């Protein structure tokens, strides 16, 4: 069997491209390491020297302020030099191929690429063609994967629920377009969550999810009843083509998270969202700001998780 391209011959993580196929021990180690980095925020000096002298290039072929910023903060807290490339407006627009861009940036002594790309698989291509000492982190590729978001969601769930082995997790909304949903499902399955539910209209929930051990629910009440964790997804207007939905108002009526619907979940349920949230489209304001919401802690945990990912892969040799 071909080796997972993210792991070296010792089974250590050298790139983070997808949660799919990673051993549970690797995920757990990243979550444990993130816990260590979370406490760096409490110090006088909020910086550790693990990536001192290393250059991290943020290559965002697709827009994202939040994810790019949290990667930048994470790299800077590890003392790396961070170079942000606004790639949409530069070489690609002039016709340079992806691999030529990477070759040029490697000649500038890049040590790590953080890549967001509209095409699924672009980070794999880069990982296969970059120099052995260069590490690649997938910051979201097409509809495929968003592994650091998946890991920070796992960190958030572990932080509030401690143990995965008896949880019911409902992922609600536009699952067909969501790389976050895919990464979450893989993470939850690897960490041993017994009940994973995908909740949404038939047009937005892929039918093949049942093969991944996911319970598909087209009825919102059925989907969130008794849930410990509710992960709301953003309605991705920019990825939608054709008539997948009658209207945003209709979607909110059926699948928007309101206090009434939230009351069906466990009393201590947590509500998560990868952001940016669309108030009144997938989630009511009072829920987004309410006592069940852990949306802002997710952002804080995201920095520690990205520090853990970058320091873990940078410390392992190809």
């Amino acid at each position, binding site marked *: 069997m071909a080796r997972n391209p993210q792991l070296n011959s010792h089974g*250590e993580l050298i790139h983070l491209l997808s949660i799919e196929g990673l051993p549970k021990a690797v995920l757990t*180690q990243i979550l*444990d*390491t993130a*816990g*260590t980095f979370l*406490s*760096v925020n409490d*110090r*006088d*000096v909020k*910086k*550790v*020297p*693990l990536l001192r002298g290393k250059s991290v290039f943020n290559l965002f072929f697709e827009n994202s302020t939040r994810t790019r910023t949290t990667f930048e903060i994470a790299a800077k807290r590890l003392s790396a030099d961070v170079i942000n490339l606004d790639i949409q407006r530069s070489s690609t627009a002039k016709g340079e191929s992806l691999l030529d861009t990477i070759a040029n940036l490697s000649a500038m002594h890049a040590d790590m690429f953080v890549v967001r790309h509209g095409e699924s698989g672009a980070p794999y291509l880069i990982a296969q063609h970059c120099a052995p000492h260069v590490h690649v982190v997938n910051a979201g590729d097409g509809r495929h994967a968003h592994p650091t978001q998946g890991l920070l969601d796992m960190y958030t769930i572990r932080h509030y629920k401690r143990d995965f082995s008896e949880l019911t997790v409902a992922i609600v909304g536009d699952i067909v377009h969501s790389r976050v949903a895919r990464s979450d499902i893989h993470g939850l399955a690897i960490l041993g969550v017994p009940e994973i539910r995908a909740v949404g209209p038939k047009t937005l929930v892929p039918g093949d999810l049942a093969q991944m051990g996911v319970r598909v629910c087209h009825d919102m009440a059925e989907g969130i009843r008794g849930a410990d964790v509710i992960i709301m997804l953003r309605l991705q207007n920019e990825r939608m083509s054709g008539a997948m939905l009658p209207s945003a108002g209709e979607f909110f009526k059926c699948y928007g998270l309101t206090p009434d619907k939230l009351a069906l979940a466990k009393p201590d349920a947590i509500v998560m969202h990868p952001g940016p949230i669309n108030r009144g489209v997938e989630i009511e304001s009072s829920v987004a700001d309410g006592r069940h919401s852990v949306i802002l802690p997710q952002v804080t945990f995201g920095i520690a998780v990205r520090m853990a990912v970058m*320091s*873990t892969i*940078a*410390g*392992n040799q190809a």
Partner: protein
Amino acid sequence: MTQLQLDAEALYAELRHGVRGLLQPDAALVGIWSGGAWLAERLQRDLALPGAHGVISSTLHRDDFAERGLAGGTAATQLPFAIDGRPIVLIDDVLYTGRTIRAVINELYDFGRPASVTLAVLVDRGGRELPIAASFAAARVTLPRNQRLALARDPAGLFTFAVEELA
């Protein structure tokens, strides 16, 4: 070759005596994870010091990160007190190259500026690669490079030393 025998409990009694002599007013004990943290925990109790001891980890400042990565564990530093202006007594089980102490002093300074830093250890095994010395060592021994001294703590809290052969 005769195996080195070290009575960790007898050495601990020596260390307790030695650390008592190092304690200035307002001093705080900080144990280096993991063996040093066990020693600091017991010293805090046996010396009837007020408050809690600190635990410090070298992980984030190690100089072998490029070779070893984060493999050495991810224990977090826990300093349940402000260190600014306080005399800090670092406690460790074994002092060897001095590289862990260098890393730990850097880690300490990420939390503030202590009045002073001193070091007390159970065993100084020589082999220093940096200009670092302990103010107190309960024993000084010489060990070949392929041997490692490992402190263990049993469920009753008693210490033992084992000499391990490195591959």
